[in-house]
């Protein structure tokens, strides 16, 4: 069995444009891409049912032999409805984000959460560990005898 080349091309175009739009920073664009990719995925499942034929309604006549595979249709039917639900959910998210972030006329474009993190800021997390390491190193170094120490202390002792 093989798929209709027309539908394959259409699916590829819809995936391509969908992904292209999805990768933008605007949340609305993301959603538009999401819907495109969703439709493309439905097409992919449709492709899997092979060539077109008669509807999967049992009539008891000869036309039943040309019936298309109903399994992909079942998968798609629920996929369509869930797609709708998720689309609405993302819309609610977009609205809430826009509202809470007080984006106003800037629209719904969000920057990366850690965009302005610098290496120094990330490094700072380890600062306390370094301080602790230094502290124990200092304790160890202080216990090291030096040739002149002994005399200084004896001289100090003598002067007392």
């Amino acid at each position, binding site marked *: *069995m093989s798929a*209709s*080349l*027309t*539908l394959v*091309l259409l699916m590829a*175009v*819809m*995936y*391509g*444009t969908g992904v*292209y*739009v999805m*990768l*933008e920073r*605007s949340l609305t664009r993301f959603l*538009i891409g999401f819907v*495109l990719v969703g*439709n*493309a995925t439905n097409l992919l499942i449709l492709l*899997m*049912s092979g*060539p*077109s034929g008669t*509807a*999967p*309604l*049992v009539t008891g006549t000869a036309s*039943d032999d040309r*019936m298309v595979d109903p*399994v992909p249709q079942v998968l798609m039917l*629920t996929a*369509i*409805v*869930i797609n*709708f*639900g*998720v689309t*609405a*959910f993302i*819309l*609610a*998210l977009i*609205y809430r984000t*826009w*509202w809470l972030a007080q984006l106003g006329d800037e*629209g719904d474009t969000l920057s*990366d*959460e850690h*965009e302005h*993190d610098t290496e120094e800021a990330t490094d700072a997390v380890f600062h306390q*560990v370094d301080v*602790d*390491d230094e502290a*124990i*190193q200092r304790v*160890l170094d202080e*216990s090291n005898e*030096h040739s002149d120490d002994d005399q200084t202390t004896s001289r100090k*002792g003598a002067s007392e």
Partner: protein
Amino acid sequence: MATILLVFAVIAVVTPSLTRVLSTKIFYLIACIPAAAFVWTLFQTATVTTGGTVVETIEWIPQLSISLSFRMDTLAWLLSLVITGVGALVLVYCGRYFSATEPGLGRFAALLFAFAGTMFGLVTADDIIVMFMFWEITSVLSYLLIGHYTDRKESRGAALQALLVTTFGGLVMLVGVIMISVQAQSTSLASIVEQGLAGPATTVAILLILVGAISKSALVPFHFWLPAAMAAPTPVSAYLHAAAMVKAGIYLVARLAPGYADTPGWDAMLVGLGVLTMLVGAWRSLRQYDLKLILAYGTVSQLGFLVVISGYGTRDSALAAVALLLAHAIYKAALFLVVGIIDHRAGTRDWRHLSGVGRQAPVLAVIAAIAVASMAGIPPLFGFVAKEAVFTSLLEGALDGDVWGWVAIVGTALGSVLTVAYSARFLWGAFGNRRSAAPTELHAESGSILIAPGILAAATIVLGFVTAPIDTVLAPYADTVGEGHYHLALWHGLEPALGISAVVVLLGLLLFRWRLPVARLQDRLPPVIDSSKGYWASTQAVDRLSAKVTLFAQRGGLVQYLSTILVVFVLTLGTIALIGRAWPTEIRLWDYPAQVAIAFIMATAAIAAARAKQRMTAVLLVGVTGFGLVALFALHGAPDLALTQALVETITVVVFVLVLRRLPAKIAQRNQPIHRVRRIVIGTLTGLVMGLIGVIALGARQAESIATELPRLAVEEGHGKNIVNVMLVDIRAWDTMGEISVLVVVATGIASLLFVSQRGAAVPRLSGARRRRTPSFRSQVVADPHLADREMEAPRDAVGRHSWLIGGRAIAEANRSILLEVLVRLLFHPAIVVSIFLLFVGHNEPGGGFAGGLLAGLALVLRYLAGGRYELGEAVPIDAGKVLGVGLLLAVGTATASLFFGAEALSSAYFSFDVPILGHLSFGTSSIFDIGVYLVVVGLALDILRSLGAEVDRQQEEADIDEESTDEFSASEVDR
């Protein structure tokens, strides 16, 4: 042995709460457990001396042949005695060392006690995996104990160093442990040692295990963590870092030596690093002011000594090794305890500030002198006996022509000279009289704190005189290594070893005599090996690297994460698709000519949507692709799909518009899209890979489609002619159940995003609407409760105008469309009837719960669009959550009801009858299930309208009101 461990575990858990009651007396109580274990171990002496073993095995993970097996032979016996004996004494010592006000006392007691149990488990475990478990637990406990003073920086730093170094070694060791147990096909240590494997893989495994051993026993280059660990309370240093934990590495070397001392690299690693460690440790010990650090570096040195001798691999060296291990544990623990007492009483451990301590505390001085003498190898103490045995066995090896024997004997002799020197310096530093410092004032302390070090000092004397029985007991271990004739004894006659000992002591004392020139020399020489710098550099490099990676890989942006996922997708699936062999045998250009036209329109719309600048344009163009799908479905032979898709697409466009009306019209007004090329590349590649998959997937099918059986199943089992619907509500009902659950979750999610506080009170109703349904009130205009004050005048003008929708009167005059109201008035009820019709005929004709529910939802959309949120409230005067709940309940009820009739969940029962108009209906439980689906979809539509429609309206109106006074965002809304 398992019982002892269980007791340890239980008591450790209850110790913190007991401490609250008993305060420092808890230590005496918990000291009883290791003491009891000590006594139990003593009772095993007879078995062990005759070469027997005590074995216990409890099944644990038979699939991996890992079991909780314990085995006590001579080596385990000796270490158990050291661990439980010293452990009990240290716990007793703690009872005096700590005051009742010590912070974290309960935790400390529990950890130290748990440590004793863990060490006992480590040395008795026969399963190498279980042994490794105990090994790692000791690392963690050591971390917690070193870090006991949580508020001190040096304490935290030292704890982390010890943990990182020992767990690094532990992880390396784990690889070796698994390799060796796979090669030996056994996890039993005894079996692994007995097999004495050889070969490159074994060499690698053993060397990896040795890395773990030398990191645990603080050998160069890992030695730096041990002096740092002296930040711990002194009892911890005495127990973990002198007697017990650091001996784990020695134990492992001694354990493996009988089978693997011939492994290539064994001698170089153990003898080489051991000698180096002995010299480096002793050299640095010589220049410490801090008494505890003298001992710490001394311990590093002695551990090197122990590794040399236990790794040397002859029968006599093995005997010497276990003797030295015992001697070291006793005198070093005693010395640490002594330092703890000095620290307590004098308030310092720096010998420059100590003077006349010996005169004031003579008993303490005597105890210390005995332990120090044992450490320096002065007869007749046990340390001397052990050292004699070491020198004899190493000399014998060297005279046999072994190069490593020469390295070992020369190295350890030199190391011993330094040992004598720092031993003398320790004693002089701690107890000597100094003109430079005023006599130290010692705090009074009860004599009972001397019990533990006293017993240890006595032991070191007594053991020196009972060498014969000790020799008998320890010999079985030595005999596993090889042939030999040496016996532990105080007096062997005028042997070479005695000569070496004498020279060592003499040179050591001379070195002590010339300590000032020595110190000057040390100061001038560069530090021998300072691997703590290496540790610093490497941990900091790892930290910085992780910071860089995090910065690069986790930007906290959807775009980057999506790109990563897609690139991985393209690379993996694209590669697999290309190298796969399943190319289709034929290519069909199209199913029917119209397909090309529809596809062209859809593709154009998709590309245009991607380029659109305005939100609404993009949404409508995406809608075109959706309606294109409707046509494709219809022509393909999928009427159910076409129907559902048409309804969904319509509602989707409406919902988009409902939300987007609030957002600015242009998509990116300020921020221009970035990374255009990158997005084009990723998008194109994804499209290509998906196309590739589309082409080859059908050709790759191997099994017969299940579709051939479905018509029969649908008619006979499901009593329906519409296969798609029968599958949804009967054959695949479980899937549908999951899917409607998702819808309920989504609906709830949307509602909670919009109604932050609560949804129940959100059904906007007109006051007294029920009464106003009567004709006499039809003509009156109902005031919008929200705008009551401001709009009171306008309604009066509108009096007399006929209203088609009850909520329509609540809408401002300018926003009303009488045409829409009339249409909705005429269409709503027929639409609901048709939706119910669809629901019921779905079993045989296109339709079903999803399509019916969507049509009803669309009818509600019309009511809302024409009459506003009050109209919606009047149309469905109940909470959407209730609709969803009833729907889900019906579906779940159908699923479970069949259970009560003894059938499986979701099996259907049917009864059929003829109904006018609808035709022959076969009504089954699956129809009730479909009603549940219908209600869930209606509930979803209702929730979306309430939230994204009505609530957004309300918020906008509020914002518009506030706009006059403040800015667009009402503070109250944002705060909520």
